[in-house]
């Protein structure tokens, strides 16, 4: 395969995958929604869940994006340092978004700041957003795709706490976001919490936490315990689907963390809405690909 052929192939696959993720939710989200729907007894909550499930069926049947807000596209990369198309990757991803926008179709969601106009293509300065992790000694490339909708991006908050506030302060911070902004972000939510030193570190952790599958746990036992405590606790608040009350509030709580400066605790919260359009695709060095977020991919 020449380099040009390779670029075309990868662009084509990513474009189709992105378009596809707008129409079908990942397996873990679908399973969790079905599970939560089954627990509801109130007619109101049940009616909302039934509509959600019907919507996902219709989206597939009619081949349309399931939510009208197909977000700003973001890519989280774990790229092997020896992946042969590393230099071409940002161009490939940008082009694939333009293609997906036409083919899906996706809503035009890229507005240039200051000049304040919509480019009409879903690409603009820094959109799609690329977050790079380069992995030594590997020659494959993992890509998480994400549609960052307006409603689910809005609750995002980050703050640097004083150590005296402790993990109790972290708890307060997370819970406050849930009962204010969380309500309108289309619950049940996947909640990402990031802990580190400064705001950007915490914020990036909180978003990467949303790329982790529902039901996975932080490897640190205390962090994993806090995930569980927050999940149980927020569920007890009972936001329910669409914030209209129900047995649960969240799809899950994922915490990602790194060490901190002794004088501060940086904390951030990000949420994914019930329509959590996350995809995960891995290319090997010959551009054979595997998709593990979605079974039965048909494109």
């Amino acid at each position, binding site marked *: 395969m020449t380099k040009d052929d390779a670029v075309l192939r990868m662009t084509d696959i990513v474009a189709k995958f992105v378009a596809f993720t707008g129409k079908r939710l990942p397996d873990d989200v679908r399973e969790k929604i079905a599970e939560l729907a089954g627990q509801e007894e109130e007619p*109101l909550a049940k009616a909302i869940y039934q509509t*959600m499930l019907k919507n996902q069926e219709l*989206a597939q049947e009619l081949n*349309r994006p399931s939510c009208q807000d197909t977000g700003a596209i973001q890519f989280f990369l774990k790229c092997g340092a020896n992946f042969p198309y590393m230099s071409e990757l940002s161009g490939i991803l940008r082009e694939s978004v333009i293609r997906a926008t036409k083919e899906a*179709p996706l809503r035009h969601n890229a507005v240039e700041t200051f000049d304040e106009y919509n480019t009409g293509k879903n690409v603009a300065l820094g959109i799609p957003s690329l977050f790079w992790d380069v992995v030594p000694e590997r020659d494959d490339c993992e890509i998480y795709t994400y549609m960052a909708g307006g409603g689910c991006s809005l609750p995002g908050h980050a703050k640097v706490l004083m*150590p005296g506030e402790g993990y109790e302060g972290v708890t307060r911070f997370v819970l406050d976001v849930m009962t204010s902004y969380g309500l309108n972000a289309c619950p049940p939510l996947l909640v990402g919490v990031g802990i580190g030193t400064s705001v950007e570190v915490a914020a990036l952790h909180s978003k990467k936490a949303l790329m982790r599958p529902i039901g996975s746990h932080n490897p640190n036992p205390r962090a994993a315990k806090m995930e569980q405590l927050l999940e149980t*606790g927020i569920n007890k608040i*009972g936001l329910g689907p*669409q914030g*209209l009350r129900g047995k649960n509030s969240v799809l899950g709580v994922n915490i990602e963390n790194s060490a901190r400066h002794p004088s501060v605790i940086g904390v951030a919260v990000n949420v994914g809405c019930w329509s959590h359009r996350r995809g995960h695709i891995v290319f090997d060095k010959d551009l054979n690909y595997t998709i593990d977020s979605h079974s039965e991919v048909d494109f």
Partner: protein
Amino acid sequence: MAKKVLTTPIQAEDLEDIHVGDVIYLTGRLTTCRDVAHRRVIEEKRPLPVDVKDGAILHAGPIIRPLGEDKYEMVTVGPTTSMRMEKFEEEFIKETGVRLIIGKGGMGDGTMRGCRDYKAIHCVFPAGCAVVAATCVEEIIDAQWKDLGMPETLWTSKVKEFGPLIVSIDTHGNNIFEENKVIFNKRKEEVYEEICREVRFIK
């Protein structure tokens, strides 16, 4: 339970027995109406070019496919955050005589007063269910204020059993989101205390 379907034109009496938390559906005419249209009616004092008296509006910006010769198809339509229209809604209800307002999330005291005094209700359509909404649209019959662009144009559609619509403000002065907030905040404090006992990792 029988499906409760409201049909336009809607009379004040039709709304009497409807309470917050009820699930209803709409058949008849529905007009999309959002930020700038509200501003024009209230601040610019321009009459709404669509008669929505005893009718229904939807806070939404749809994706429309033009079919030529002034014909259009609704591809997806999902509600947008109603709270952005809160500033105008009380007066808007009074000015236009609209009976049913559909959107996403709750609205505030102004809308609650408008609904109570002039007999209207606010309902939530489950957000993220844009394909369901689009399939309840039979046809688009009118487009006004097209100068506002696709999302803001007043698109009037014929809809059939558009819903489910969850009543969030009724004609009796109730507002489900305000009631829920009180409950959520109370529960939050209990949860906070519980979790804090377990996360004293800094010792």
